[in-house]
């Protein structure tokens, strides 16, 4: 569609600390972890920075290993594949489950039932 340029103006560049993500929010997430009592400023800074790097890394690796390189797109399934195939992203498999089509699911369900019936007989 139209070439919208104002997009770039709005890049409210990160804070004075060279971070884009809000430290306050990252601290909130960290503190939601039950055993954590105190976090010093440096640890907070590093975790925030690491999270930014992680987002870049996850997006880029999923894109590079994904199906959308030619169509220039990044889709959910590229992410789910990355979580499954790349070792460093394995901790994400629970929140990035692979999707299957309903008809495939029903088919496999039918198969399972047939097998069960076969066993019963």
């Amino acid at each position, binding site marked *: 569609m139209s070439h919208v340029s104002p997009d770039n103006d709005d890049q409210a560049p990160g804070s004075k600390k060279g971070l*884009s993500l809000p430290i*306050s929010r990252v601290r909130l997430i960290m503190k939601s*972890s039950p055993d954590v009592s105190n976090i010093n400023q440096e640890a907070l800074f590093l975790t925030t920075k690491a*999270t930014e790097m992680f987002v*870049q890394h996850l997006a880029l690796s999923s894109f590079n290993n994904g199906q959308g390189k030619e169509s*220039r797109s*990044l889709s959910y399934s590229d*992410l789910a594949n990355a979580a499954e195939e790349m070792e460093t992203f394995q901790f*994400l498999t629970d929140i990035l489950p692979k999707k299957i089509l309903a008809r495939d699911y029903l088919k496999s369900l039918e198969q399972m039932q047939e097998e069960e019936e076969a066993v019963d007989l």
Partner: protein
Amino acid sequence: MAERPEDLNLPNAVITRIIKEALPDGVNVSKEARRAISQAASVFVLYATSCANNFAMKAKRKTLNAGDVLAAMEEMEFERFMEPLREALEVYKKGQKGKKEVSEQKRKDKEKKTDSENDKSREEDEEEERMEEEAEAENEVEEEEVEN
């Protein structure tokens, strides 16, 4: 502290910007993919925190420090982050030194930060709204013209 589950999400506008900057120009990232990356980032924070906390507990410390976070990266097999993180930390430390009263004022800082947290989240909200407006504008070029 986290009263609503959304409080554990990272701001979408910022996540979207980081993704865009990481990918080659013109790559389209689906809404679902963006949401998934954002959730993944929250899980990453929790995972890193729990790893770092294990190191602190082993050393019988109650406060997570930079070394714990770096050790966590190694354990999570994100060694590739360690060198850039160390460099960023050095820059950060230099910036902190310039502010003088670091250690003594830490407590006061904490109080101040809770105040400024509110400001920040307000800014985030505004930013998100702006993004939404833009997204709409892309779909409805006519409206955009009217606004301009």
